[in-house]
């Protein structure tokens, strides 16, 4: 079956589904109609390098034909739509066995045109370790990014994705990572760009002794809609997962964070938690945070929590008493709130890069 047929064989998701309740598929689709597939799709300019721009040795971004092998945790409609847009072509990033890459890899995705899409497959082979920064920027009206991968036995993947798309863009992001025995994945997202963003991020913990850590910082301004869904399935015992999402909601922006944590029968001694915090800067801003737990194993630690609050007047007073203007004080609180999402994140180089991008973003906002 080809990728287009596979997409068309599925049906439009219902708004009653947890995943599509707040941002329905119609709003995410570039043409607003389920069965229409845009015929002119531009692949982004993709460049893999080290952070200083030098060429990467030993690994490369390889374009290849897609061999569809979805699994039960596949992000369904989002994934099959992006596969269809990419026409069965994907890019592979393979980190060979026993390979440790000391410097972070930098994947620059410059997106343009009316509809753009990119399918990345990451294979982190056993006992390998690497860090990846993905920067999405450009003025595409619509961009779809599908990232799939396997984090193999005893391998380690640290990941930062920064969305800096132009203010009118729509982003559909789908992810599915499978983690094997003793694998570790630390993933961070800084979501700043675009006016309409929908993400469906999934992890399937198949191995024992896995550590999966997902941090998401989102900045909602103007009429920006950022809707992120996380689905983490624990299938094996003695694994940990953590999700921390911090959202700033300003102006008339809207944020939705839904999380589904499933701990299956065999996943004894799982330690899993989800925490969603929202800082509301405007009366017109909205934040929905809905963590969900489905626990089928007996011996587990599972927690979830969510809270929304305005900026603390006493924090503002403290900062202003140190000479900072109201706008500067708000900016420093916003920066701190978003950066505290990444507290204790194992890769400092990734977080320093994220902080630089965040400061530029906030400075631009202050100037405006």
């Amino acid at each position, binding site marked *: 079956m080809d990728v287009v047929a596979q997409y068309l064989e599925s049906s439009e998701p219902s708004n009653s589904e947890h995943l599509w309740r707040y941002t329905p598929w119609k709003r995410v689709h570039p043409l607003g109609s389920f069965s229409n597939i845009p015929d002119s799709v531009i692949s982004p300019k993709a460049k893999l390098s080290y952070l200083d721009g030098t060429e990467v040795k030993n690994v490369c971004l390889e374009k290849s034909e897609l061999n569809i092998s979805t699994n039960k945790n596949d992000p369904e409609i989002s994934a099959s739509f992006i596969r269809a847009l990419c026409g069965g072509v994907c890019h592979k990033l393979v980190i060979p066995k026993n390979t440790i890459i000391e410097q972070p890899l930098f994947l620059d995705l410059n997106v343009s045109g009316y509809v753009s899409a990119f399918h990345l497959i990451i294979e982190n082979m056993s006992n390998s370790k690497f860090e990846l920064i993905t920067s999405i920027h450009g003025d595409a009206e619509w961009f779809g990014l599908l990232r799939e991968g396997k984090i193999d036995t005893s391998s380690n993947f640290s990941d930062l994705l920064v969305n800096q798309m132009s203010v009118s863009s729509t982003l559909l992001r789908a992810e599915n990572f499978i983690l094997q025995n003793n694998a570790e994945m630390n993933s961070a997202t800084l979501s700043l760009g675009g006016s309409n963003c929908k993400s469906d991020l999934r992890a399937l913990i198949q191995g024992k002794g896995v550590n999966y850590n997902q941090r998401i910082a989102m900045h909602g301004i103007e009429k920006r809609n950022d809707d992120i869904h996380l689905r983490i399935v624990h299938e094996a015992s003695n694994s940990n997962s953590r999700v921390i999402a911090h959202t700033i909601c300003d102006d008339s922006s809207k944020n939705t964070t839904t999380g589904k944590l499933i701990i299956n029968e065999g996943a004894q001694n799982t330690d899993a938690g989800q925490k969603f915090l929202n800082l509301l800067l405007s009366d017109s801003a909205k934040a929905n945070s809905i963590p969900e737990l489905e626990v089928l194993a007996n011996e587990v630690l599972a927690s979830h929590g969510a809270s929304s609050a305005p900026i*603390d007047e*006493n924090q503002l007073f*403290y900062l202003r*008493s140190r000479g900072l203007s109201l706008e500067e004080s708000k900016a420093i609180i916003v920066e701190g709130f978003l950066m505290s999402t990444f507290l204790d994140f194992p890769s400092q180089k990734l977080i320093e890069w994220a902080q630089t991008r965040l400061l530029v973003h906030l400075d631009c906002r202050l100037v405006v």
Partner: protein
Amino acid sequence: MSAKKASLLEISNLHVSVEGTPIIHGLDLVIQLGEIHAIMGRNGSGKSTLANVLMGHPAYEVTDGKISFLGQDLFELSVDERAKAGMFLSFQYPMTIPGVQVGNFLRKSVSAVNESKLSAKEFRILLKEKMNDLQIDRSFLSRYVNDGFSGGEKKRMEILQLLLLNPKLAILDETDSGLDIDALRLVSEGINVAAKDSGCLLITHYQRLLDLVKPDFVHVMIDGKIVKTGNSELALEVEDKGYDWLEA
């Protein structure tokens, strides 16, 4: 004949309410440059309210009275304008600002108050010197502002800011609380340095701070009013006799 000292702060007939409840009822106080004033009083007597009103906390409503700071109407200045004009409040309970590193915060604050007159190099030198004076470790700079700080660390952080910002009027709201004797000595040395060419308003419950920072005037506040003013002997008397004898 000595020249008349410049007037730093003049408060006359100050009335303040919080959420409709009157807290300060007609307070008068004048502080001249170079003077150290101490305010003592029971919990709830209005001492911290006065400190917050002076710095401009929005929760406090001034219902009557006037305050001038260096000849300017204080109520015309926003909180940050007061800081830039040379007013500093050391908080009784300093706020935690998660995700904001101390070093960055101090740099921004000094830059704002001095309107960027200090170069990055000059700031680093100044910061190192003041941190050494207060025996603060360099690792402090990469921590988040007051996040996970002990009581003593928070107070030292406040005094570090006092020394860096070099204000004309330092208002210290129970800066001595939660400090062990060594930390109190360090903090007091910092206050004495800062108070040399400026004015200082100390709010405290305890004589032990006033042994180390000698006030020119001691005021006792009861029910939102200054009921007695004296010299440092008054603080000793309060320590000995409590406040009952001062009530009308």
